[in-house]
């Protein structure tokens, strides 16, 4: 009787241990397949659906509109899959430039880190799901400046 009970406990412990191990493996497995994020990639900011949340995670401070930020986008984009966007500024000491498309499934489209010596002018191409504002945020001397322009999209570029 005694032996059986001991045996039971032992079995129970191993079972628990096995379960715990499996659970750990499961979690690690999920994390492993879903995430192998590149070092320095601000994953959380890229997962946000609202502009406020994405900016809060990326910068955590408010921005002000500035005509010193030049945002060059087409007025009408026939193909939302390829929308040329370029951002430039006269502001000194620019450290980051980010581009947001609030109507996209994920607001944040791209964020660039500019070391000293890199000119504050970036050109790239983005996908836009539908007609939306495009917001360019420039971080200069620790402050945020923004420019906003609307792009009319006739054919969405995020599938669906």
């Amino acid at each position, binding site marked *: 009787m005694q032996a059986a009970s001991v045996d039971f406990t032992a079995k129970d412990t191993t079972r628990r241990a096995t379960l715990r191990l499996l659970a750990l493996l499961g979690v690690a497995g999920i994390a492993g397949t879903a995430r192998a994020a*590149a070092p*320095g990639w601000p994953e959380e900011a890229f997962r946000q659906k609202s502009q406020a949340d994405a900016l809060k995670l990326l910068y955590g401070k408010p921005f002000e509109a500035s005509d010193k930020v030049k945002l060059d986008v087409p007025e009408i984009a026939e193909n939302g899959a390829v929308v040329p966007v370029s951002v430039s500024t006269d502001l000194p000491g620019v450290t980051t430039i980010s581009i947001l498309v609030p109507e996209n499934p*994920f607001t944040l*489209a791209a964020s660039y880190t500019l070391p000293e010596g890199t000119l504050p002018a970036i050109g790239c191409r983005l996908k836009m799901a539908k007609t939306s504002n495009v917001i360019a945020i420039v971080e200069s001397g620790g402050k945020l400046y923004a420019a906003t322009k609307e792009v009319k999209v006739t054919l969405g570029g*995020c*599938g669906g």
Partner: protein
Amino acid sequence: MASTIRVRAQANGTNTEVQALIQHPMDSGFVKDSNGVLIPPHHIETVTFTHAGKTVLTANWGPAVSKDPYIKFSFKGGAKGDDLTVTWIDNLGKTDTLAAKIA
């Protein structure tokens, strides 16, 4: 296999202008294939440009960047014949790197 990266870097004496084109599907995870099955996200997360041991630009990209991404920027310095190294890493951990000569 040919590199997925194509770079044109041109020095004009004071600055170097860089244009890069990367072959990548940049699947957003919202698009369905012809059978109606969602294509899982597969996009570049970071691209780093280095010149003379110094990073000149880090790009953090979400799935909203277009397929076969293009990027253009300039940095101060850089001379003809210098190496400019481009490296990208995507969300599946794939990576590619290329050292191009500045023209």
